[in-house]
């Protein structure tokens, strides 16, 4: 088929196999990131190409308007929910990795929410949380806890918790499976040696399991944090961000596409990007120093 020398073929393969993928990555990851910085310094509306350079005015607006940063406290619900979820995932990973009847079935069942369609899941919870006919209130009524019945989405103190719970519900199983994978890569003779030395179950967990899954923990914490900062689907599908559930990304999307202020939206996106990067750096430096 090819009558070129292997040297020529090598060039052809490298060029032919890498050009398009690399171009895709440059076009849809790097170019947007760079142009975002530029747009953030303009007053562009997103309609037409009429834009003026206005320096750091957009950033000034972000940092002086409390309502922009105020929504970050809504993102915090998703972060706290995420931490609880990681802890639960680790717990279930540990017990479902040990000796237990029917553990494969339990794993599959707990993982199931992750494969369910995300928008349909949120709408499902809309039905669950429905004030009058929601199945959650019906359940509480059926077991005699009428006094616990709530307007889950109407109550300002509960709404964000209700929403963050959906995210926990959906992702717990995924994280659990990742943890199980990490647990299985720990050589079993470590545990045997510890047993001979008389270590208790908790000691084995503390001194063998935890250190061995450190890198996975780190990954999870970063994903939890960035996931919380990027929360969008759940509050948007549920309430369009109304009733005090708006998140930073909802605000960015609205600023760009609803209020036609691409310049300001870009600046918000840059701020979000920098926050994510900052947290990743801090997390790597602080949390896991002493390692490596």
């Amino acid at each position, binding site marked *: 088929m090819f009558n070129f020398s292997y040297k020529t073929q090598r060039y052809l393969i490298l060029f032919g196999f890498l050009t398009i*993928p690399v171009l895709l990555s440059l076009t*849809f990851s790097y170019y947007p990131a760079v142009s975002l910085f530029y747009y953030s310094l303009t007053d562009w509306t997103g309609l037409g190409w009429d834009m003026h350079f206005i320096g750091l005015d957009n950033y000034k607006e972000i940092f002086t308007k409390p309502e922009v940063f105020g929504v970050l406290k809504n993102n915090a619900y998703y972060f706290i929910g995420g931490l609880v979820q990681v802890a639960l995932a680790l717990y279930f990973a540990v017990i479902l990795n040990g000796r237990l009847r029917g553990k494969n079935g339990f794993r599959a*069942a707990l993982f199931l929410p992750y494969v369910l369609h995300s*928008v349909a899941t949120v709408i499902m919870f809309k039905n669950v949380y429905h004030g009058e006919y929601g199945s959650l209130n*019906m359940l509480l009524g059926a077991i005699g806890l009428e006094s616990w019945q709530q307007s889950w989405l109407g109550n300002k103190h509960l709404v964000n918790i209700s929403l963050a719970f959906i995210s926990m*519900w959906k992702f717990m199983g995924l994280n659990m499976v990742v943890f199980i*994978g990490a*647990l299985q890569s720990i050589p079993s003779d470590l545990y045997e040696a510890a047993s001979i030395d008389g270590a208790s179950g908790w000691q084995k967990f503390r001194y063998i399991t935890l250190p061995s899954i450190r890198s996975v923990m780190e990954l999870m914490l970063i994903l939890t944090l960035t996931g919380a900062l990027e929360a969008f689907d759940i509050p948007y599908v549920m309430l369009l961000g109304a009733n005090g559930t708006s998140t930073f990304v909802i605000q960015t*999307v609205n600023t760009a596409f609803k209020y036609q202020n691409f310049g300001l939206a870009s600046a918000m996106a840059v701020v979000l990007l920098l926050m994510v990067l900052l947290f990743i750096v801090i997390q790597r430096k602080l949390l896991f120093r002493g390692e490596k």
Partner: protein
Amino acid sequence: MEREGSVGFAVFKYVTIAVALFVVFFPIYSVVIGAFKTQVEYYQSGLSLPKDFFYLDNFSKVIDVGGLMLGFRNILVILFIAVAGNVVFGTMVAYALGRFEFKLRKTIMGMYLVAQVIPMVTTQVATFTIIQHLHLYNTMGAPILLYLGADVLQIVIYLQFVGSIPRDLDESAMIEGASLFRIYRSIIFPLLGPATATLIILKSISIYNDFYTPYLYMPSQKLKVVSTAIYSFIGPNAAQLNVISAGILLIFIPTVVLFLFMQRYIFAGVTNGSVK
């Protein structure tokens, strides 16, 4: 891990699992029963099982009014092209990076790693303008192109597999006079099969579930995908919880079936992708 715990801990384990299973299945149970109830029944019968599991009006209603079939068709087209592209590009990149030493190798690898740190949502404003420039706004080309690029996860998984294929195979093929492309096509690509199966499933699930991309880039009614179809359906019909339940159930089915049959691959992909 193994714990020679007390009976108390054993009981605790099963209790917590039971609670978790209840929490997972209760919402699902409520849409399953809701989907088979008439509207009156829905509002009166609470959590009890439907009278008639052959009452299918809700399903036909959500299919007709909600445009679900169009959504299924559109997402299938997008999925097919995007996932095929992903497999082709992913294996090509892994072959090039895994089998050859060249100057830019580290740079390209690093490029993919850094790109993963950039959160997709933050760059949407800028991506949006690129899609407009390419005249792909409101076409299926937009999501296809956005989903097409192989991501670092894919490349890492494929690279591991490429590394485990003995180089002797390549060499003996070269002795027989096979071209490097032929080696990719007849040796590397087929041997990457298990990894490909995993990636096809995981990628399909994530594209099927995506709301953001179709919502922003394909507002046209004709280009509804499953996500946007059900989203636009909840507005005017918010009161008909039974019909909505039927829609949710229909949308759940494809990935659940896929999951039940492909569990092994899915679990393998999730663990391989994240742990290493």
